[in-house]
């Protein structure tokens, strides 16, 4: 009796598993790959299409940013297709979820290049994840257009040569960002003493903190307190109390949005009222997450785009109509990356990955995009040249922009 029951259970479980796998076709075919964002205008396995891959964190810890980038890219792809495609061919965007895991990222890259025959990848916004793609992209020579803050992702620190497959597109790296903010705080706000409070378990946070410390001291500022925490810590009052005791004039917070929210809230709880300086992550939805936005009395941060700009109204409408959520700055990054890719393909009149790499290195100069004017991609650093950013201010809970800013103290 038990034997038959056991076998029945095994049978049912196996059947369930196989049924699930049968739903999407067998390994080796590409049909089961994409999310429901796949563009409907292409024919599956059709003849004249250009496949663009996307590797982002769609369901893990970084999924807020990952989804934003991926959705922005999808929007761009749909727009381009509606306007006739590139070189007469339609684009297909295949998005894979890497769940914020390095191994998954490499798997996804292998699958996109080997099986799906993608010509370029709109890559992850996380430096650490991008690192895992350095080796494979150098081998396969399918370019990855990503958003790492760490310059070591695009350039080999030991040899000074750029990695063939890695490109930082549509965002300045951490060093440029740090120089911008430190220049602003010194020149525009006349502050000289900074405290830095960053996440040692997050590469973006760590790199931004290091870059800021260097830039700030380079132009003559003083760092009076450096406090750290680790991701998944929830209580910051101890470190914040230490900052309160030091004579810092502002706090640099290069952390992801939820931690910025927690830090600002807890600082208010202990009565700490210094201005905050963020890297990029105090952009929306930061204010909406604070339980009381006016506790954020004074804050400055940088962004690649000012979302309330009228030029972006159409973009935001489309994004909201398509995805049901508000577009954020990272969505514009994903969007711009696809347009840069389009420019690269058109520059060399070819969608071959190696040609795209060539174009990305040499032929992206003075390009006018939706949010960036005069965008140039530097062939030696694989990063943008002199990209401007917008400084945003939060005053008593109200967000405004102060226009684009170019640092003057650095050469």
């Amino acid at each position, binding site marked *: 009796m038990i034997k038959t029951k056991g076998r029945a259970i095994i049978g049912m479980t196996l059947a369930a598993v196989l049924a699930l796998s049968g739903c999407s076709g067998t390994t080796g075919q590409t049909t089961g790959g994409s999310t429901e964002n796949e563009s409907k205008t292409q024919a599956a396995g059709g003849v004249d299409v250009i496949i663009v891959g996307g590797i982002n964190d769609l369901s893990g810890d970084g999924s807020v940013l990952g989804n934003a980038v991926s959705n922005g890219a999808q929007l761009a792809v749909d727009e381009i297709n509606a306007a006739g495609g590139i070189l007469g061919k339609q684009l297909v965007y295949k998005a894979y979820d890497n769940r914020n895991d390095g191994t998954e990222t490499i798997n996804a890259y292998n699958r996109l290049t080997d099986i799906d025959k993608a010509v370029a990848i709109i890559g992850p916004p996380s430096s650490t994840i991008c690192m895992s793609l350095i080796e494979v992209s150098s081998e396969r020579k399918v370019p990855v257009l990503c958003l790492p803050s760490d310059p070591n992702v695009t350039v080999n620190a030991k040899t000074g040569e750029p990695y063939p497959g890695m490109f930082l597109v549509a965002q300045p790296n951490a060093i440029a960002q740090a120089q911008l903010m430190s220049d602003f705080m010194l020149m525009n706000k006349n502050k000289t003493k900074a405290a830095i409070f960053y996440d040692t378990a997050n590469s973006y946070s760590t790199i931004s903190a290091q870059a800021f410390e260097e830039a700030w001291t380079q132009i003559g500022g003083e760092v009076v307190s450096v406090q750290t925490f680790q991701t998944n810590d929830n*209580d910051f009052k101890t470190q914040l109390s230490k900052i309160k005791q030091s004579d810092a004039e502002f706090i640099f917070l290069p952390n992801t949005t939820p931690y910025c929210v927690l830090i600002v809230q807890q600082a208010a709880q202990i009565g700490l009222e210094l201005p905050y300086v963020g890297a990029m992550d105090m952009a929306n939805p930061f204010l909406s997450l604070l*339980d009381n936005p006016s*506790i954020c009395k004074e804050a400055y941060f940088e962004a690649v785009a000012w979302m309330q700009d009228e030029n972006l109204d159409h973009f935001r409408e489309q994004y909201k109509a398509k995805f049901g959520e508000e577009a954020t700055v990272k969505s514009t990054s994903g969007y711009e990356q696809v347009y840069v890719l389009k420019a690269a393909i058109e520059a060399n009149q070819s969608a071959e990955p190696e040609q795209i790499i060539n174009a990305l290195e040499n032929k992206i100069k003075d390009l006018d995009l939706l949010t960036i004017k005069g965008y140039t991609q530097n062939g030696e650093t694989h990063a943008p040249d002199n990209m401007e950013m917008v400084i945003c201010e939060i005053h008593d809970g109200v967000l405004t922009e102060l226009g684009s800013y170019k640092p003057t103290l650095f050469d």
Partner: protein
Amino acid sequence: MNIIQLIINGISLGSVYVLISLGFTLIFSVLKFSNFSHGGVMVVSAYFGYIIARQFGFGLIPTLILTAIFGGILSSLVEVIGFERLRRNNGDIMLYFVASSTLGTMLQNIMAVTFSSTYYSYPTFFKKPYFELFGGTFTIPVSDTIMLGVSTTLIIILMYIIYKTRLGVSIRALSMDSQTAKLMGINVSVVVFMCFFISGVLGAISGVFLGINYVLYPQLGQMVFKGFTASIIGGLGNISGALFGGLLLGLSEVLLIYFVGSGYSTAIIFILTIVFLIFRPQGITGKIVSEKV
């Protein structure tokens, strides 16, 4: 840095752990296993609380009550799905571990899939987030004070239930010897069900407070391990141990972060836990819970 403010911070942090550890300790005392799915119940209840607070604009008390009921039901469901069969068939204790950690992971992941595309935070329940004492020298967060008050009240209520009601007698009988309890006419299934319900209520309340204190994200469920540590320090098998364990853990964390920094504090707490387990496995208040021969 004023040592008193540090202590206040430690107690505030600890009050979160006390709540978590309460729900955990209850199940451990009665059923003798570590319920790792408690974290999952906490997180799901936290999101539930968020939804009803935002959608219907409830204040703190109604949110707490509704979420508590939700948490209790969820936890009982978890018991039925995960543990009931095992209990009936006298399953191997390993299976309880696997079932509970799998359930916990599953609940967390369901939240991650449904809600992870953006961040959420609870609406403000308090006009001013902190009390000031002595003209601003010390600040005490309001939510933490309420948490401490709620935990203490709950402990008192729980102890009343366990020591003064019939249900409590059944629970104590069950924790001593489940076979004999059954023989004595106690409906073990119902008692276990009630225990899980109560544990779920506790978990839900901790979930809501966690959501208030912190930004809502699925990994909040990992806090259950802090609750576990607190239970062990305080003494598994003793309800009031949750209070001491939680506060002590909160204090140690704050002090360690202050003196040693955030990275090393995790490692040091790990070492301290081991030392504690080796030299005083019954915790501060507990009795030795030995395995049967």
